[in-house]
Every structure is written in C-alpha cells, then in structure tokens.
C-alpha cells in the first residue's frame, strides 16, 4: 500500500545521482540500496513532524539545503550561550562537522541544491557545543535541551580514539542521559544516536568510550561500499547497527552539505553513519510517534541484517539474532523499520537485575586467563527486577593492572554465546586499570538470562613487564537489563506457538511408559530412529544392531549410532563408520593430515594445504575465532589478529599506525581523510602531514631545526651534518651561548650575565674561596673542561690565570 507522492526515482538536487547508497541511477554500476531508504519514502515516510538535532560544532542554518527544515527551537549555542547555532567561520574550516551531519539527516529535497536528506521533511536543529572547552556541564546541558520537543539527538564525537584513552560521561552527563530516557518526549524517552569510534588504525576499542557503550545511546558503525571494514572502524560489543560510509580506496563516497553553502564528498568516518541512523529513526517515528527509546532499539535489532557485510565473527545468538563486533546486528533497513514501527506494540517495562560474585581479589597472571563465574536466576524472586529476556548486558569491573592494553575480556552467557567486551590495545600502556568501568554488550539480546555466566580475563603481555607485578580483579558486577515477559509475545501467533513448544508437559506424560518398558527382560519395544533394519535390543542408540547413518566407537569400547559423526571424526560413507581424523584435526574428509577442514583448540587451519599447524605462514595471521590462518589484507606483508591490522606492508605501501597506505611521491603525503596524496609544506621533502612541523626530510636548501625545516639556523644554533641524513641540521649551541661556530666550546657570543672565556660562556660571578690552591685543584682535575663543572669558580680561576 504505497502512498502516492512525488516521483521518487528522480530529484533535481545536483548530487542526487551520486547518492548510490539510496538509489540506483546507473544500471551498469553496482546497486547498494540495501538500506531501503527509498522504500520507506515510497511508503510515504519522510520525517514529517519529527525533530532531530545535531550535537556538534554548530550548523549553518541558512545553508540553502537546511534553511527549509531548520528549527530554531531544536537549536542552541552552548558555547556562546545564545540561540544561534551558526558555526564559527575560520580560515581552517574547523567547524564544518555539524553542518555535514545535519545535511545527511534533513537536507531538503528537490530544491536544486546539493543533496537529499534521509528524512528530508524532518525538522533539523543544531546544538553548538564542541567549539570551546568541553566540560561535564557543557555535555549535560547539550543533552538536556528541550527534551520534550526534540525527538532524536545525534552525536558524532567522543573521547580521543587513540587506543589509549578510557573515558566516558561525567556525573552530570550520566544524569542527563538518565533524565532524557526517563522524562524526554513526555516520558517515551529521548533517543540518543552515537557514532562509534574512528580509532581502528590505532587499535582502539569502542568499549573504552563510555558514551557509545552506554545503554542509552544507539551506537552506530560504518561499512564501505563493498561491505568491508573501513580503515577507521573500531570493534566492540555495544555497536547496534551500521550504515554505509566511505573508507576504502577506489570506492564511492558519501555526499552531504558543507559550510559556506557548499556540498562535499569529503565527509567520512562514523560521523556519516550516526546521522543516517538518526534520519532513519525519524522515518520510523513518523510511522509511530509513540515508540519508546527501547522500542527503537528493539526495532533496530529486529530489522538490521548482515546483508553482504564481511566480518569473520558473525554469529547467531541463542535468540536467533545474527550479530558481529564490527557491525552489531548489521546494516539498517529503513523500510523494514517503518513497517515494523507501524504495527509495533510497546515492549514490556525495562527491569534491571544485578549480581556481584564474591568480592575476593583474584590475581590475573601474565599469559593466562582468569575465569570467574556466577549462576543467576535473573532476580526471579523479585517481580520488579526480574529479567528473563535480555536486552543490554553490562559488566562493571574493578581491575588493577600494570599495563591496561594487555587485557582482553570476554563474557559468556548461559546459552554459550561469547561476547568480547574488550580486545587488547597495543598503544595503551596505562597502569590505571579499570576502576568501576562499565562494559556493555548487545550480543545476548533476546536470550534467556538464567544460568551460569562466565567472565574471562586474559592478560597477554605485549612488552616485557616486571613479572612480580600482577594484575588483579578486585570486583565485578553483572548487570542485566531486559524484561520479565517475552517482548514480542503479543506481536504474532508464531511466538505463542514457540512458547507452546517450549512447554515440556507432553514429554513428561510419555516418560512413565518408557520406564515401565525398560523393566522388561526381553526388549520388544520400538528401536531408536538411528537404528538400521536389523533392529535392536533396547531403546537407545547403543542398542542398535546396525545403524541407519553412522556407527561410532569400536567393539571394545562399545558402538553407538549417530546421525552425524562428532568432532575429530569424519563420515566414511562406504563403511558407514565414524573414523578418526588426523591428530590435530577437528573436522576432516579423510585421516590424511592434509585433509583437515577445521582444527582443535590451539591449532590453526592452513588453507594452503588443509593441514593444522600452530604457526601460520607469512602473509597470514592466526584467527582465534575461526582457528584458521587467514590471509592478511592485500596491502599487508604481515598482520596481527586481524587482516587489516598490518605490521609490515607490501611494496608500494607504507605503515600508518596499523594500516598500509599507498606510498606517495616525494613532496606529498597520504591524507587519510581525503584518501589521496596531498602536498607537504614547501619546506619539506617528505612529510607526515601538511604542516611545517610535520617534515620527515627537508627540501633542498633547507636545514632541519628542531621539528621544522628552515632556510638558515636561528641564533643559538649552528649548522652541521648528521650521518644518514641528506640535509644539514641546526644543532643547538652550548648552554648560554647566543651564537657559536660549531659543537663544544666554540661560543662566539654569550647570553646576558655570562662572559666569553676560552670560547665558553661562564656566569658573571666570582668565587670568594678561589685561592691559588683551590684553582690548582680545578686546573689539575680539568674541571672547567667538563660541562657539569663549567660554572664552578672557573671564571675566577681563569681570571686569576
């Protein structure tokens, strides 16, 4: 039942043909319309009456593509304390970010300017709060502006993504989040959309960002056009969904509005993705404005899907949701969101159940794994806290550790789903540990809470550490959020049916009959379904006289019939027997060592020769999840733990952090934002960035002085050659020299308060006790030739001859 409206196959906005992630305009190029935004539009949802605001460095409210939807009531300038969110303009264009994000959400359609926003009829505001000192007050104020008026807050910022920062909201901001979800939108809850971190190149992990890992934020990650992991993307268990963004060489980019009334194709990173999701949520809210903040998260879990996104950790949890640490539940689907939204019934109230296992301090030994388990009932005795069906799961830990980056933390649910709460971070050398830090995962969404939960902490020292200093787990608390009833039970007959299947009543009735039959000496009852045509002498699989599928075991140990052979065996079709694989193989097609399909724990499948090995060949890395040697990214020669975490690069590429980027010619450097070689400063021959302090080698005619290249050495420096460098370097003169002719005692001019004596600058002070004997001691020990003693009565002794 599509609503009639303007023709959506064509808009006159000049960048519309480039919006490949929304529509297909060229039959010859690949179509990447899986986000189904066009489908949602065609059903009539374009964001009308929904208010979105961008928390950032301001938005250009009079931009021709924003002016039509700009909403001053959804805007504020926290930095300037007024109501105008216009960004501060400067020559470096530092404040382009908010305007770029705003355009993605609500750029007007069919106005012959720039692009079409995902929710092109939504109202858009901007909260200018990043252009100044950001404090807890600034963040709390920003998140609490007009909570009954603004529906969706979109933020694409956070603590440094440098792989070593662990930081999150302060006490006021935490309260602002809580107030927002409790009271915002007249009690339905504000919707906070957050960009996951961009620190993939630094091996950062978004669990170390307390904003994106908060249960109150919808954490969004990005994928490239071909479904690959962009170079900047971080992994973590709190990511809920994904959109397209740019981030891989030779792939199409995202277009949006830019300041100075322009358009840009330079917007990249997860900042692209959060506003796209904010726009899609606006479409869903138009379809059903009564959705609560948790309904929106449930909708994303239900409708996002892996599509063609490539990740080696996709898994299906016990509730049937496919989830990954890179992409959460996958690519968002706008049409599915609006369709579900129209028929959605609010999920039952959120309950919270916490449990802290015994508070005994436990040491974390280097190169070992510490396991701590707790068995819980999901607070079934407390009706107000009872959590039977999981939503967010939080683990609060107090860990003391000499090197925080060496820690990896996993949580395993009673259903056996494993979620990585923290991966190792090579750059984090902090000894601060994690003090009441909260890790969050959405990977158990929909699973049952009761049973044994296991926290697994692994310490893998990346550098030589003092073996006497051990880390320790002081305390941990498992905090389960969810519902006591099945949140979807009221939605469809299918769920009721599932519930009936779970009822064990019918099986219980059959048990006494079996018991009675087992007591008889001669067995006349039915054989197990795995038994073959020769019958059986009992009801179980080990009582079969032959098997319908495969027989497992030997005459000595006893045989049993199985439908499939267990791990470590293969199915020999001709003999209908389960035969042992070669030692080390977990699954195989023959007993040969080169016919393995997967390997036992601790070994990795070498795909080149199908054997199991404990070390992978060059160009491959040992993937712990797949237990397989996986090929490094094409640009890497060697890599660590992930295909794109390179440790050495192929010819023509060089290492930038953990990514191999194309080598640029002299005078240029690889610009990661623009994905191209950009010119160095004119004083540099080679460089790492555009600034004059980012030279690696100086251009011809320039000398290196400290961190920049200069045409002539400054006073207090002399020029000299250094082996291994093609250009000269300005070395600092001796202490207190204003100018000198070379290294050592070659001063030609001294600072005020010093005198030039024997080409050395000596303080203008006389020693009272520098008599002949004393000066003889100074002279015989050559004290004045030693830098440390140079000011030691030398002037007095030298003046006295």
């Amino acid at each position, binding site marked *: 039942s599509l609503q009639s409206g303007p023709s959506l196959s064509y808009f006159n906005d000049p960048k519309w043909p480039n919006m490949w992630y929304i529509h297909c305009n060229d039959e010859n190029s690949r179509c990447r319309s899986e986000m189904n935004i066009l489908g949602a539009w065609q059903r009539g949802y374009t964001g009308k009456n929904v208010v979105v605001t961008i928390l*950032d460095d301001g938005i250009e409210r009079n931009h021709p593509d924003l002016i039509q939807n700009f909403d001053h009531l959804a805007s504020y300038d926290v930095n300037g*304390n007024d109501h105008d969110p216009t960004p501060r303009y400067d020559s470096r264009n530092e404040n382009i970010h908010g305007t770029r994000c705003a355009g993605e959400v609500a750029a007007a359609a069919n106005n012959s300017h720039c692009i079409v926003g995902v929710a092109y009829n939504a109202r858009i505001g901007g909260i200018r709060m990043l252009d100044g*000192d950001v404090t807890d007050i600034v963040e709390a104020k920003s998140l609490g502006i007009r909570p009954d008026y603004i529906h969706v807050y979109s933020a694409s*910022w*956070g603590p440094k993504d440098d792989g070593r920062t662990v930081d999150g909201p302060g006490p006021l901001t935490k309260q*602002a989040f809580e107030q927002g979800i409790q009271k915002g939108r007249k009690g339905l809850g504000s919707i906070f959309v957050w960009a996951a971190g961009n620190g993939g190149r630094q091996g950062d992990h978004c669990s170390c960002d307390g904003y994106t890992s908060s249960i109150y934020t919808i954490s969004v990650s990005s994928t490239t056009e071909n479904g690959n992991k962009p170079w900047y993307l971080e992994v973590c268990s709190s990511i809920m969904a994904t959109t397209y963004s740019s981030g891989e060489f030779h792939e199409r980019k995202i277009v949006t509005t830019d300041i100075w009334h322009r358009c840009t194709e330079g917007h990249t990173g997860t900042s692209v993705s959060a506003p796209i999701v904010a726009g899609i949520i606006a479409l869903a809210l138009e379809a059903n404005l009564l959705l609560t903040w948790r309904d929106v998260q449930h909708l994303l879990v239900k409708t996002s899907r892996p599509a063609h996104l490539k990740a080696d950790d996709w898994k299906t949890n016990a509730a049937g949701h496919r989830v990954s640490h890179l992409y959460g539940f996958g690519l968002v689907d706008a049409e599915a969101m609006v369709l579900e939204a129209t028929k959605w019934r609010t999920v039952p109230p959120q309950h919270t159940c916490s449990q802290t296992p015994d508070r005994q301090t436990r040491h974390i030994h280097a190169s070992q794994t510490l396991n701590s388990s707790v068995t819980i009932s999901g607070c079934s005795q407390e009706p107000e806290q009872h959590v039977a069906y999981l939503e967010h799961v939080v683990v609060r830990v107090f860990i003391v550790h000499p090197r925080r980056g060496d820690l990896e933390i996993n949580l395993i649910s009673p259903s056996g789903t494993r979620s990585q709460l923290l991966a190792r971070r090579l750059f984090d050398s902090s000894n601060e540990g994690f003090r009441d830090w909260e890790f969050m995962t959405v990977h158990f969404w929909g699973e049952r809470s009761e049973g044994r939960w296991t926290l697994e902490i692994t310490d893998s020292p990346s550098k030589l550490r003092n073996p006497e200093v051990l880390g320790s787990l002081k305390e941990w608390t498992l905090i389960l959020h969810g519902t006591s009833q099945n949140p979807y039970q009221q939605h469809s007959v299918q769920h009721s049916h599932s519930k009936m299947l779970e009822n064990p009543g019918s099986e219980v009735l059959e048990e006494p009959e079996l018991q009675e039959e087992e007591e008889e000496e001669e067995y006349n009852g039915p054989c197990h379904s795995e038994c073959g045509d020769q019958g059986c002498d009992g009801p179980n699989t080990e009582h079969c006289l032959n098997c319908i599928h495969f027989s497992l075991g030997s005459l000595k140990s006893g045989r049993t019939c199985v439908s499939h052979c267990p791990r470590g065996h293969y199915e020999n079709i001709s003999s209908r027997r389960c035969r042992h694989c070669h030692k080390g193989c977990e699954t195989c097609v023959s007993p040969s060592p080169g016919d393995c399909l997967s390997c036992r724990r601790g070994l990795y499948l070498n795909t080149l020769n199908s054997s199991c090995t404990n070390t992978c060949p060059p160009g491959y890395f040992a993937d712990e999840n797949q237990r397989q040697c996986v090929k490094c990214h094409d640009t890497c020669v060697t890599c660590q733990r992930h295909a794109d975490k390179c440790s050495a690069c192929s010819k023509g590429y060089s290492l930038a952090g953990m990514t191999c980027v194309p080598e640029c010619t002299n005078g240029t450097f690889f610009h990661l934002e623009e994905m191209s070689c950009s010119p160095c400063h004119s004083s540099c021959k080679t460089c790492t960035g555009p600034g004059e302090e980012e030279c690696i080698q100086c251009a011809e005619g320039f000398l290196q002085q400290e961190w920049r290249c200069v045409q002539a050495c400054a006073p207090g420096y002399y020029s000299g050659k250094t082996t291994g460098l093609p250009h000269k370097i300005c070395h600092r003169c001796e202490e207190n020299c204003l100018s000198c002719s070379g290294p050592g005692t070659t001063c030609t001019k001294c600072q005020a308060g010093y005198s030039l004596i024997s080409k050395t600058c000596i303080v203008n002070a006389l020693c009272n006790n520098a008599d002949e004997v004393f000066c003889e001691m100074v002279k015989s020990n050559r004290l004045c030739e030693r830098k440390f003693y140079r000011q030691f009565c030398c002037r007095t002794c030298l003046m006295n001859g």
Partner: protein
Amino acid sequence: PGRGDVYTNHWAVRISGGPERADGIAERYGYRNLGQIGSLEDHYHFHHSRVVRRAAYSVKGPHSFIHMDPKVHWIQQQVVKSRVKR
C-alpha cells in the same frame, strides 16, 4: 582528576531550595549563577571571574570556602574534557 587535567573557572553545584537560594550562595562566595544545568533539578552552573580561566591545578582561595557551606550538597570544579569529532 588526573595528570594533565585542565581546571576551568566553572563549577557545577547542587543546592536544594530553588534558584534564589543558589543565587544567594553564589553571591556570598563571589560566584555568578549562570542557571540550572539543562533539565537537572537543583544543579546550577557557577562561574568565578577572579579565578584563572584555565589552570593545571585546582587553585585554592576565598572562593574555595563554598565547599564548606552546609547548604551545598555537592560541588565540582569543571575540568576540560578532550573530545574529538568523528
């Protein structure tokens, strides 16, 4: 607060009894009450113009006496948070 923190001349203060009482306490210690912090009830934003705008440590002075006022339930000098655009 840790190493490398930058302290500002802004404070978050929790005072019950309404904005007039907050104004009175601010005035008594030389602060200016810039109003409620967002929608957080009883939480006010105080500014002190005679304290250095950015400092490497928390400067003590007559303004610090506010910490001892029994009507002030909680007070926190604001520290600059390093935030990056993504």
